[in-house]
Structures are given as C-alpha cells and as structure tokens.
C-alpha cells in the first residue's frame, strides 16, 4: 500500500519536474502573462505565442503565453485569476467578452497589477467600462480606411465598389466596412454597397454573381476575411474577371497570398499579431521596471501586396506572420 502511494508520488513529481522543471526559477525574476481566448493550437495564436516568447528572451524575463484549447472565456478568466494569484508583474489579455472581463481586470488593477488588452476590445458603446491601461491590436475602423486608400489610385472618380461581409453584425467586421465606406464615398465620391454574402462559400459566389450581373459597373470587391475572400477569389478565377474587378481583403491565408501573387487580389491587410504578443511584454516590462505607462499600439498597419507576397509566405511558414 505504502509502496503504491510512494510510487504515485514519485511518478507525479517526475512528471511535473521532468515536464517543466525549468518553470521554477529565481523568485525575483519579473514574470508576465499573456492570456488569450484560444491557445497555440490555433495557427494565429501560435504566432502571438512566438512574439511573447521572443520578447521574454530579449528582455531576460519570464513571459508566459496561456490560452484554453478552444474559444473558452470562463477558462480564460480562470487563467487570468491564477496569474493574479501568482503575483504576476503584468498581464495582457484579450477582451474576448465585454461583460465577463470588467470585474477580473478591476480586481487585478486593485491589487496593483498592470493590465493591457490585446487583439480585441469591447465595442464602442462600452468604451471605458473595462480598466485596462492600453490596447495593442488592430484598430478595425482605421484598418478599413487604410485598405480603401490602398485602392484609391486604381479607381476612377465615382466608381462603384461592393463590401462583401461574411458575418453580418460582427462588430469587428462592421467597423472594417465602415472605414472602407467612409473613404470611398468621401475621398472618391464613389458608391458603396454592403452585401451579406454569408459564410457559405457556394451561397457567397451565387450572391456575388447576381450582384455583378445587376451592377456591371462594379470596379472593386472588398472582402473582410478569408471566409469571404476564398469564394470571391474562386469566382474571379472561374468567371475570368481578373483585371476587370479589383479585390482587396483582410487577414493572411495561403489562398489569399497565392491570389495576390497571381494578381487576382491587390493586397490584404495584415494585423501583425506577432506584435500583439511581443509589444505586450515590452510595454508591461517597461511599466514594471520604470513605471512607464503603457500606450495604445496599432498593429494593423501591415499591407501585403504582390511585391511582398513571397516574402510573407515564407514568414508565415516560419511562424512570424
């Protein structure tokens, strides 16, 4: 009996110490947590984790990336609370739910732990209800404006463009659409239609085709993410619209990068999530060390075009983009 208990103890210790023995380091080392609503099993977050780890190495601090296996806010909140109890010197988190985050972040700040938001934040009407110190991520609205401006030189005055939204009502996507619409109407005097193409690729192609039939003067299509871009690219290929209808998209995806190389897509906005991990650790470090207040950082200034597509494709493979 005793032997069995002893064996279990030894096994447990071996598992723990063998698995992550390096976890116990000097107690006075600065420790920062970056906690996302999904883990490094998701390629997007694997890049963020890379940024966190690289920043930790560069600064000589412990930088820990954590996230639940799937999208799971309660689990993320539990992780955040554990980081508070571990007396972290700073925590960065995604505002994955505007309601659920107000209280945990208030508590962390009350206990003197700096908190930064990364990747996503609460919608406009709730601004100021969650006391994080700064936001590091893409400003969706500004990104929309930038995407539209990239296309301005190639469009005639008063041109007609269509914004294909694959998830109507999605706060982030709507903000992107708003930015595009403002630039096209105000700076080009153009006409903008917003089209709900749904997330179903077959339906999306059907909806876009009938729109183009009804509006043959359409000069460009904006898609707001890979889910909208992939069917649009297929339609442009199948219907031989290359060069007749321009296209701009958001976010990186192998299909989209290929389409950029092929000249079907003019470019795509990259939110450069590596920066969201890296800069979060840097700002938390500066805050802990020199009491420098974290500042907002817009990571969404990346725009991938035909010139950069090949380089980006190889960086995607290496896990930096």
């Amino acid at each position, binding site marked *: *009996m005793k032997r069995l208990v002893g064996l279990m103890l030894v096994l447990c210790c071996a598992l723990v110490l063998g698995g992550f023995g390096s976890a116990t380091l000097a107690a006075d080392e600065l420790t920062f947590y970056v906690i996302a609503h999904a883990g490094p099993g998701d390629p997007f977050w694997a890049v963020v984790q890379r940024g966190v780890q690289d920043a930790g190495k560069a600064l000589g601090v412990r930088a820990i990336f*954590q996230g639940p296996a799937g999208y799971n806010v309660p689990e993320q909140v*539990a992780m955040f*609370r554990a*980081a508070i*109890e571990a007396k972290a010197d700073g925590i960065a988190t995604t505002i994955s739910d505007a309601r659920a985050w107000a209280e945990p972040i208030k508590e962390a700040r009350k206990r003197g732990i700096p908190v930064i938001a990364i990747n996503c934040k609460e919608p406009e009407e709730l601004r100021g209800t969650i006391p994080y110190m700064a936001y590091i991520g893409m400003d969706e609205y500004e990104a929309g404006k930038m995407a539209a401006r990239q296309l301005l030189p190639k469009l005639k005055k008063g041109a007609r463009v269509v914004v294909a939204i694959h998830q109507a009502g999605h706060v982030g996507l709507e903000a992107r659409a708003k930015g595009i619409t403002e630039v096209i109407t105000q700076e080009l005097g153009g006409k903008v239609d917003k089209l709900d193409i749904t997330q179903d690729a077959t339906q999306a192609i059907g909806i876009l085709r009938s729109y183009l039939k009804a509006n043959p003067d359409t000069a460009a299509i904006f898609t707001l993410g890979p889910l909208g871009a992939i069917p649009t690219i297929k339609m442009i290929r199948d219907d031989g619209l290359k060069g007749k209808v321009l296209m701009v998209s958001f976010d990186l995806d192998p299909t989209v990068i290929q389409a950029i190389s092929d000249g079907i897509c003019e470019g795509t906005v990259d939110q450069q999530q590596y920066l969201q991990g890296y800069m979060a650790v840097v700002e938390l470090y500066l805050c802990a060390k020199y009491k420098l207040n974290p500042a907002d950082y817009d990571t969404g200034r990346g725009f991938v075009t035909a010139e950069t597509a090949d380089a980006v494709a190889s960086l995607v493979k290496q896990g930096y983009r």
Partner: protein
Amino acid sequence: MRIKALLGHREVGVAVALIVVYAVFISMKREFLSAGTLGDIVTVAAELGTVAVGVSFLMIAGEMDLSVGSNFALTGMLLAMLVTRLSWNPYLAFAVVLACSAGIGALNGLVTLSARIPSFITTLGAMMFWRGLALYLTQGWPISVFTDVPLLRWLGGAKVYHTFHISAAWWLVIGAVFWVVLQKTAYGNWVFATGGKRAAARALGVPDTRVKLVNFVLAGVMAGLAGCFQLGRMGSMSPVWGQDLPLEAIAAAVVGGNSLTGGVGSILGAMLGAVTMASIRIGLVMVGAPAYWYMAFVGFIVVAAVALNVRLGEVISWHR
C-alpha cells in the same frame, strides 16, 4: 484497525491525489497556498462540481449523461435570453429554465428506459442535439447581461469572501443534500440497489425504473443550475461553452470513487475530484506551464486514483 477502516473509504484515492497535487504545486510556487488561490479553485470547482454531483448520483444508479455540457450552455443561455431580450422577471425565468433542464434530463431518461438503448447513446445524441439548438438560437453569438440583475449576483456574481464566489456555497449545500439523500435515506439505498444488482433490487420491490428516471432529471437540473451559476459569475453565456464538461464531470466522478457500471460511489469523492481538477487547472497556470498540460495531468490522475482505489479494495477485502 482504525487505519484500515479509513482506507476502506472510497474517497481515499482522490484524497491522496489531491494531497499530491497540492504538495507538488506548493513546492513549485509558494503563492499556491493562499486564500485567494483557494477561492479561485473552489469557484471553478463549484460549477464543475455541481454537474459532477448530479452525474455521480446518476452513475451510481447505473446510467450515464453525456448531454450535461449542452444542457449547461443551453440553460444558461436561455436564462440570459429571457432576462435580456424578452425582459422577463428573472425569478420566473430562472424557474422556467430549470424546468427546461429537468425536461432535458427527463427526455434522456424516458428515451433510454422505453427504447432500452444504452444511456451513453441516448445522451450522446442529446449532447449534439441541444448543442445544435443552442448554436441555432444565438447564431453562435454569446449573450451578455449588462444590467444589474440581483438574481445573477445571488447565483454566482457575488463574492462572499476574498475571491470566494457565492456559487461555492450553493455547491456545498447541494453536495450536502445529495450526500444525506444517498447515505441516510431509503431512496439512497434504492439508488445503490438499482445500479448494483438490478434484478435483485426489483425482486425486493425497488422501483428501479422510477429511480433511474428521477436521477436522470436530477442530473439534468444540476447541469442547468451550474450553467446558471456560470452565467451569474461571468454575466455572459456562449453556446459553445461547456463542451468538455461531460467528460470532466465523469472524470471527477470516477476519480472520486464512482464506478462507471454503477452500484457504488460517493458524492464527497466526486466533489473532491472536482476540486482536484480545478487545482490542476489553476496550479498549472501559476507555475507557468503550458495550459495543454491540464489534459495530460487530469488523464494521469484519473488512472492513478482509480488504480489506487481498486488496489485498496483488494487489500481491504483480503484482510477482512
């Protein structure tokens, strides 16, 4: 002799596991041993544990419920929807959604018992069906309650002390009630008899079918109640939350000495099982280990604790 009597308890395996987990984490991170950490652990354990108590009660009667995670999400979501979108009275809405969760449990029981198919199959189907319905109702979006609803504070939002949420207190009350019913009442004996030797129980006049049906309903209600606790604590409920809950609840139950085939088990053991799992979850983050270790760790604990229980059982019967 006294030690032997102590070792005869089904909770020994999980108690040893919990002590080992605590010892390991404290040795790695001093802060693990603090009121704040304990509060966080118990808060996480309360939601998992409420489900685990219901599932254990059903498992002792010889049945299984895999639909508890979907029931959890659907019930919490319905409560959020009724209170926000339809502006119902929160207390009325609470009663209605608990009735719904009872209905889901009852349906599991009725289908299993009348169609004579294993509850594993029935509730596997139910798990998918109710999850699908929850996703359809909100189109995949979470629902948040931004207004101050006293009921939600009472369910889980309020803190009683430091990081201890009120849901932990409700969980202890629930656990105590189930423990008393199981250990001290005739109904408890029926539950053991139904899950143990069903034919013998029936011959002795135990209404085994009714016992199973009642336990299905209770497992459903506990799952729904846990969903309401979480809504109270988070203020939001997403149709995709609670997907791992069925297996976690069963893991907590078996770690705590409940048998998969019924007839034996312990409510206290299941509760300690939930605390063990919550400790692993919080502890791994505190020592800075990758979160994926949680799964591996729980897997190890499940097998080790059950093996220890079996071994103990053999030793005890040998010496009798």
